[in-house]
């Protein structure tokens, strides 16, 4: 025992302290990181993650074209997207939310806390909707919902929640958040930690209502939802101009540039070209956004817009690359914009959800706002809108097709949203390429790790949807 005393120097514990890492972090820093990571995964064109632009057939691949043929397995794409959304986005939001909730009142004024919690919750609602729209039923958690098991490390095998139940709760949450922001007299929120609006409460209210409009419209045909109420409540309070757009303003320098710049410019590779699916249609309409969207290519002495054939091998230099605008490191990442909101309003009129304004006006305004965003001159916009194939009264198809096609153009570079709207509106017509691994995916299969690590709950989730395949539609994709 004497030896035992001799040979213990005490204070062993102190050796185990990590002096080069923070033990505490302000909630705002986690919130900001979540916003940024959310934008990154939606903006990314990395073949291991964000293949959204391929799913929307805005772009196609060149030499290596497995992803364009919907090979999602080899690169573990469903796994990587899932991991980022839960671990790098949701977890930071949730940790910020909980630490703020538990923060001693001594340190924060109560109304400010309510505002901050509302902002975090709105970002969470946004992220959950992306997850549901990608996979269907998922592990979920919410203060206003019983039985959610996600984001709790003490439960390493969380159960899945029905997608419909999640959507119901998301609406409940958004309503509560909107109410909070409307009620508090405190105008401060998260200040500069908010990368979208620098904490501007008024704009956040419009963002929350625009998000509510999006969720409501997504639910338009889903049974069991009162989409009309959701949409009509939100519609009067949505974005009023493009100044309200929810943008992450990327920086000039790495690692804070637009991720597309990293994959396209910095890498020095030429993995993507424009897809003929969109280029052919835009060329046919002489769309004035073409120069903002794509570069021209010299074909036998003439500079033209030429899309690579979707889903086959394409020699990069034979086809149009994305434009210099798209490849700008500071091109903002868009979470929600005014043009998109206007398209929803046009559709809401058609569906009878709202009675103010006309579908045509909203439609024209939506296209106009999109074109403004891409720097198109007013005269060119007028010419474009006057084209019979574009004009709302004369364009082909029903309202879903008219809106679907134009929205698909407007959602260029917004692959995930473009893919979702295509699934919902079924327009334009997208065809799987030859030798494709599947038809155009309607969802992502669950990650392999869920099959291995969370087998029982995974099996339950599969029972909810029938089959864990890309052909299984998300619940709101009723047609």
């Amino acid at each position: 025992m004497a030896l035992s005393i001799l040979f213990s120097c005490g204070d062993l514990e102190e050796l185990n302290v990590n002096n080069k890492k923070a033990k505490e972090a302000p909630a705002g820093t986690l919130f900001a990181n979540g916003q940024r990571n959310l934008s990154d995964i939606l903006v990314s064109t990395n073949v291991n993650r964000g293949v959204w632009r391929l799913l929307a057939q805005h772009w196609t691949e060149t030499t290596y074209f497995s992803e364009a043929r919907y090979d999602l397995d080899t690169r573990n794409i469903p796994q990587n997207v899932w991991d980022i959304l839960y671990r790098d986005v949701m977890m930071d939001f949730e940790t910020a939310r909980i630490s703020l909730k538990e923060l001693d009142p001594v340190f924060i004024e109560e109304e400010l806390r309510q505002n901050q919690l509302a902002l975090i919750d709105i970002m969470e609602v946004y992220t959950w909707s992306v997850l549901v729209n990608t996979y269907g039923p998922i592990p979920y958690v919410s203060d206003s919902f019983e039985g959610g098991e996600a984001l709790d490390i003490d439960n390493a095998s969380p159960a899945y929640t029905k997608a419909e139940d999640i959507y119901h709760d998301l609406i409940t949450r958004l309503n509560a958040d909107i109410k909070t922001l409307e009620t508090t007299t405190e105008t401060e929120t998260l200040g500069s930690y908010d990368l979208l609006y620098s904490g501007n409460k008024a704009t956040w209210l419009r963002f929350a209502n625009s998000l509510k409009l999006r969720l409501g419209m997504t639910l338009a045909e889903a049974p069991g939802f009162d989409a009309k109420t959701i949409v009509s409540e939100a519609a009067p309070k949505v974005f009023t101009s493009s100044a309200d757009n929810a943008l992450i303003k990327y920086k000039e320098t790495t690692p804070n540039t637009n991720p597309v710049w990293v994959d396209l410019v910095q890498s020095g590779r030429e993995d993507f070209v424009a897809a003929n699916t969109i280029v052919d249609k835009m060329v046919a309409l002489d769309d004035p956004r073409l120069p903002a969207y794509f570069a021209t290519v010299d074909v036998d002495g003439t500079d033209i817009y030429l899309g690579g054939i979707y889903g086959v091998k394409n020699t990069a230099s034979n086809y149009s690359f994305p434009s210099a605008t798209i490849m700008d490191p500071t091109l903002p990442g868009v979470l929600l914009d005014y043009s998109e909101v206007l398209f929803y309003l046009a559709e809401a009129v058609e569906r009878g959800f709202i009675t103010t304004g006309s579908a045509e006006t909203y439609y024209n305004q939506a296209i106009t706002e999109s074109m403004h965003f891409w720097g198109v001159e007013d005269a060119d916009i007028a010419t474009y809108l006057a084209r019979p194939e574009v004009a709302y009264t004369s364009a082909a198809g029903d309202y879903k097709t008219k809106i679907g096609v134009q929205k698909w153009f407007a959602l260029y570079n917004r692959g995930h949203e473009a893919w979702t709207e295509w699934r919902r509106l079924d327009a334009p017509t997208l065809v799987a390429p030859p030798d494709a691994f599947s038809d155009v995916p309607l969802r992502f299969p669950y990650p392999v790790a869920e099959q291995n690590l969370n087998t029982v709950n995974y099996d339950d989730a599969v029972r909810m949807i029938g089959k864990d395949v890309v052909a299984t539609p998300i619940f709101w994709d009723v047609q």
Partner: protein
Amino acid sequence: MRRILQLCLTAVCVFAFYALHAQDRTITGRITSVDDGSPLPGVNVVVKGTTNGTVTDVNGKYTISAPAGSTLIFSFIGLKSQEIAIGERAVLDVPMGQDMQQLSEVVVTAQGIERTKNELAYSAQKVDGAAVSQTRDNNFVNGLSGKVAGLEIRRPNTMGGSTNVVIRGNKSLTGNNQALFVIDGVPIDNSNTSGTSQAQGRGGYDYGNAAADINPDDIESINVLKGAAATALYGSRASNGVILITTKKGRATKGVGLTFTGGVSVGVVDKSTFAKYQKSYGQGYGAELSQQLSEQTGRPRFFVSQFDIDGDGQPDLVTPTGADASWGAPFNPNQTVFLWDAFDTESPYYHKGKPYVAAANDPSTFFKTSIQQNYSVMLDGASEKGYYKLGYSTNRETGILPNSHIYKDFINFGSSYKITDRLTATASVNFSTIRGNGRYGTGYDDKNLMTNFRQWWAVSTDIKDQKDAYFRDRKNITWNFSDAARGKLNAIYWDNPYFTRYENFQDDNRIRYLGYTMLNYKVNDWFDVLGRISLDTYNEFQQERRAITSNGVASYTRFNRRYKEYNYDLMLNFNKEINQNFTVKGVVGGNIRRTRAESIFATTNGGLVVDRYYALENSVNPIVAPVETESELGVDGIYANATLGYKNMLFLDLAGRRDQSSSLPKGNDVYYYPSASVSFVFSELMKDKTWLNNGKFRVNYAEVGNTAPAQSITDVYDKPTAFGNVTLFSVQSTKNNPNLKPERTKSFETGVEMSFVEDRVGFDFTFYRQNSVDQIVPATVSRATGYDAKYINAGEIRNQGFEVSVYAVPVQVGAFSWRVSANWTRNRNKVVELAPGITNLQLGSFQNGVSIAAAVDQPYGVIRGSNFVYNDQGQRLVDEDGYYQMTGANSIIGNLNPDWIGGLNNTLKYKSFSLSFLIDTRQGGNVYSLDMAYGNYSGILPETAGLNQLGNPLRNSYENGGGWIFDGVKEDGTKNDIRVDASAEEFVGIFGPDYVPNKAYVYDASYVKLREVVLSYSLPQNLLARLAPIKGIDVSLVGRNLWIIHKNLPYADPEDALGSGNFSGGFQSGAYPNVRNMGFNVKVKF
């Protein structure tokens, strides 16, 4: 080789000097070595039946008084004891030779405790220092391959890469499984800083493991302690077995002893382990234009063909330089084609075409002959008062790639001095520097040219032309221009290989001090006290470059790391003969260990401003905050051990240790290691059986604990780079655990050793079983928890197996002898359990959807990936289009553990000549070859341009009988007869991952290698006598890795690994070829 007693370390040999008898007569004599006639100091001379004895002096001389008619016993550790009746003699000179009776040999065991082999109740195997130093491998550890049962060495073919050293299988799920290295009682760090990304084949350099800092010339002997019972005294860090190294001590000579050694060897690439190339089709990824466009324009589809390059007004045929594959147009000497060099303004082929043929110089001509030189000098001496040694060694090696070398320098100093009869002071200092330059890139990476040459290459590229192009003005003139015809002359995927080697190279150094001071006080003849302070510390520095114009972003990266370990030891040793029948030996000790590692990593951001200027300040954008780490670990231990002996026949060894570790939470931070062993020398009961020389049975049980990795208890936040002015933090992806408890390994071992017929035949057989439980693992969890993983105590691995070593001297006639020794190891491991609800733990994730995992009920280290779909008869199924049906990426398609490993060594001796050769084998186990997967995909390998089942070139168009019929059966069980199009026009990677599952590129990793051949000659004593003052000259010719006698992996060395670690082997990407090494060594002793 004679062994010198380690006088100062223990008090095993204590003899009285005082009991002289008046009536005795005086005997004098000289004891010499039979090997070289040199005098042997320190030999014990005892009058039989008395306690009267002495030891020989520096000159091997002794004087003793003994009664007439008595018998003298001459004994010396490691030499055969002799009993000689003095008769009427007054002078008795005795030559002493090596002891073949291995059981009385002294073995250094844990904590430097010496025990005779008789007493050992566990398996320990000794390797002579010469056996590793003679072969002159840059890393002495590699010299152990095939020489020790139970020890698996896996060596990469990179210059200075890290060697995987595992004893009796992987015991820890995700922790360290490498054996512990201990030099003269001092544990040394064997970290590998290459990182997990490097180990998973994602690129980076293999900076080697730190045990390579040991000077092979300074090694006297190596003992491998395998089981937990043998190592329990070292505490947690020795749970993976110990490699105990005893360094040389000073020799007793007249004046100053001086030894020179020098050697030179050359290495050449073994072409059976490098890719071969098809010679029929050039650069391209199939048809360059889409069919639609080709039909519109009528252009040839394999070339870029709308540009006039040579100015003759006609459009020319330009190869698609952006394609890093060989699925292009068929070669045709009558066709003039413009290659990459037609766009190199300095090339004689600038704007000129060439006949379209396969390159004369393929990448196998890229390799150089490696040259390794080593020189060392050692001064030493010894007397009754002590010894000293001072050595300097240098090792200079250039690799098989251009601009690569590693220089190593060692200074070793050691001395011991008897201050009084009771007090001895000992000190040792080792200083080493390693300087590396141009280490080889590894894995799937553009800095690893093997990835380039084996996976993504255009066979129309002539290596020599690339060399000339680079050396003309040292620019990145690559065969892989983005699109030369359109003027895009940037490197798209691959740089000029010479540019890679000469511009994008790394360099590094490591400066290390390792040493101890020790005081030993002999309280009385059976008890002594030892105090020791040791330090192992090094600084390492690595810098990596990527030049402007390289493919990818130009960068400069630097990494500094400092490591320090202190050990404070106090040991009380006792050794007492209780009576004639009983002896007791033992130790009580304590150890305080403190380690500290800190590092800083910084890199430029967004490129470099000024060409060929490598400093952080040359960054295009302001650099992001460097990554700092700092980690400390403290373990306080006390231990005790006792060996009770009965009649030199039965031994009971009990040991225990208690550790307290800083990395475990308070309350769970203390753990114990009990062990009990019994050794029974049954031959003592069978002394009448003359055929049996020795026989021993042993059995032991031990438990050892292991602590958690530092800093895995409390949570901290990650700190991403600020977004503009906005500070960001993020929750860590691994959840730490404040409730961790120590891991435990329970080990049982039993064995028998016997030798027969005057020790000409002998064997050692061991069975062991080790269960490692309560493993501390960052268990992967559903990411819906917000985390990747969480530290928990869970899981169990079982390793069990047999080790057999045998030897025989089939021929011993006059001056000729032939000795054969062999060892065989069969380890079976099984993951018994992982965390609750978890059946698979991913260890490494690799390119192409392949992963290596621990899966319940499977051996540790299964390879997962997509598999064929088989029918009931085990036949591969094809679908209705003739393509293979495939499973998802989750199937088990291989296992990296060998079925068994073994070594066979033959030594033939005739007078002063000795020839030995070692055959080393590994049987079973798998490796997934990304090289084969992509080499087939990209059309480099000969198989991709061969004939199909119809006897036609498979790349012919379908209409011309081309295509391929995959070997398999259709759903209805009939043999597949559907020919699928494999023509260059329609190429979509017919042999690539989209059409062939990962399983197709899993190979049997067995090999049989002629590992070493050593022919040596020692100048005989009679010749040396004329060469005074030279006392010895040894010359040897050495060959290493000369011949892979058998293997099943095409074009590569199945042993080559991405470095050391838990999934070493199992996956090859950009594998380096085996290097055959031949050289000679000269050793001169003064």
